[in-house]
């Protein structure tokens, strides 16, 4: 697949995801309103709302994801290596300079988001920036910029918001229904609670299908490909290999990541979380094992 075919396929998949999302929401509302005996007005509303949500996920994906992740802008003075290394690679690839953000967290991770290279953002945790040296940061940034260049960011961001939203909604509904159930036993909230619970369980049952959908959209090959293009940008496979090694040895999960955003990150941010979120994460696993990626990079060391 050439670079241009890759970009075309990513743009096409983005539209497929949006269409599937709208069909899913409108279909679910249709079934509900037929089942509960409401009129079809609800379906119209669902169509409008899901359309607006799709537009938001396309247009504001970066701001939504950045605020979910609690990222703040990074400047040149404070994060000199991060900033200048990005500047260099963007110049070398003739890409516009992306906006840079950091997440205050000692866990090591990074991701990129946005709808196209002109509206891209690269995010790294402060833990990653402080523990990696310049060549290693260069490798990580190059990996993220190749996601930007390939329009992976558009597809991944839309998937995060639309598909992830359905997944998170089920968590949220189940939590609400159980919390309410344990606290007040009076009959007022009873009906609402049952509706939440049924919807939550239905969505939870759908979760594996949704997970499958994410995996279909975001094949694991993507990470290998981004690693390889990153080496093409820096001509230094060792930098990225060492960075990946350091990231894989870091045992700390990233607090702000959830199963909707996990696939965005350079390495699985939910490792070593033994609660429900961590258990779900295994199902949503979209990252190939880091060892395989390092081995692939080591193969390149001889070739470049």
């Amino acid at each position: 697949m050439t670079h241009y075919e890759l970009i075309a396929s990513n743009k096409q998949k983005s539209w497929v995801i949006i269409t599937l999302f709208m069909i899913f929401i409108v279909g679910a509302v249709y079934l509900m309103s037929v089942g509960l005996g409401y009129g079809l007005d609800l379906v119209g509303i669902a169509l409008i709302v899901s359309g607006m949500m799709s537009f938001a996920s396309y247009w504001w994906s970066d701001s939504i994801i950045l605020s979910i992740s609690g990222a703040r802008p990074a400047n040149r003075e404070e994060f000199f290596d991060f900033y200048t290394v990005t500047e260099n690679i963007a110049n070398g690839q003739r890409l516009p300079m992306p906006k840079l953000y950091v997440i205050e967290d000692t866990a090591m991770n990074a991701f990129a988001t946005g709808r196209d290279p002109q509206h891209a953002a690269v995010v790294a945790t402060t833990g990653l920036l402080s523990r990696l040296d310049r060549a290693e940061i260069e490798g990580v940034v190059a990996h993220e910029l190749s996601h930007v260049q390939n329009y992976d960011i558009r597809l991944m961001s839309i998937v995060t918001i639309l598909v992830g939203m359905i997944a998170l909604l089920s968590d949220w509904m189940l939590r609400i229904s159980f919390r309410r159930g344990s606290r007040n036993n009076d009959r007022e909230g009873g009906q609402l609670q049952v509706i939440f619970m049924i919807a939550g369980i239905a969505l939870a049952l759908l979760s594996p299908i949704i997970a499958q959908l994410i995996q279909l959209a975001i094949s694991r090959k993507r990470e290998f490909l981004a690693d390889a293009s990153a080496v093409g940008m820096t001509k230094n496979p060792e930098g990225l290999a060492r960075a990946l090694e350091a990231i894989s040895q870091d045992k700390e999960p990233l607090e702000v990541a959830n199963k909707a955003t996990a696939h965005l990150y350079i390495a699985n941010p939910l490792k070593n979380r033994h609660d429900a979120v961590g258990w779900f994460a295994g199902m949503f696993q979209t990252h190939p094992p880091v060892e395989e990626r390092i081995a692939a990079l080591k193969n390149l060391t001889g070739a470049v």
Partner: protein
Amino acid sequence: MSGFYFLLTILAAIAVYVMGVYNGLQRLKTQIVASIQEIGNQLKRQASLIPNLESAVKGYLKHEKGVFEMLTDARKAVAKADKSGSATDIDEAISKVQNLVPQIRVAVEDNPELKANETVTKFMSELTDTADKLTYARRSVIDLTQNYNEKLVTFPSNVIAGMFGFKPEKGLETAQAGSHLSVSEDEMKDVKVNL
């Protein structure tokens, strides 16, 4: 009548293709010029950074003669590259500066006073960055020139290039004969780079 439209469509398609190739070549040409200018900018930046670093470490590193020799050496190499703009001179300037930074770092590590000096660390990271920027800009010029020259000799873009009189780009000036045309024994050894 339909034959006429058929012909018209083909002509329009050809016109669009010619326009695309022409614009592509022009774009590459401006990008090559911009990258060469970027090299010039970074060399000038380096030329002004080195004396600053020199004066910042002067008081502390009196006995470290080697470091000062390297600083002077690097400054001369940068000035020479800036003047001649030749690929070999630029390469030499890049490698001189890249060797300089670790050397100073070693000297700084031994000197707690210097280690605490923010100006020195700042100048050093700026210097590393300009060396990186030079490497990237240099690589850009090479990639773009190769891309452009390839279009000039491959069919069918060569026909269009010939029509508008595009000339091959030299990219960075290199001496016609010299060490860069041959590979020495040393260069064939396995390279281990650690930054």
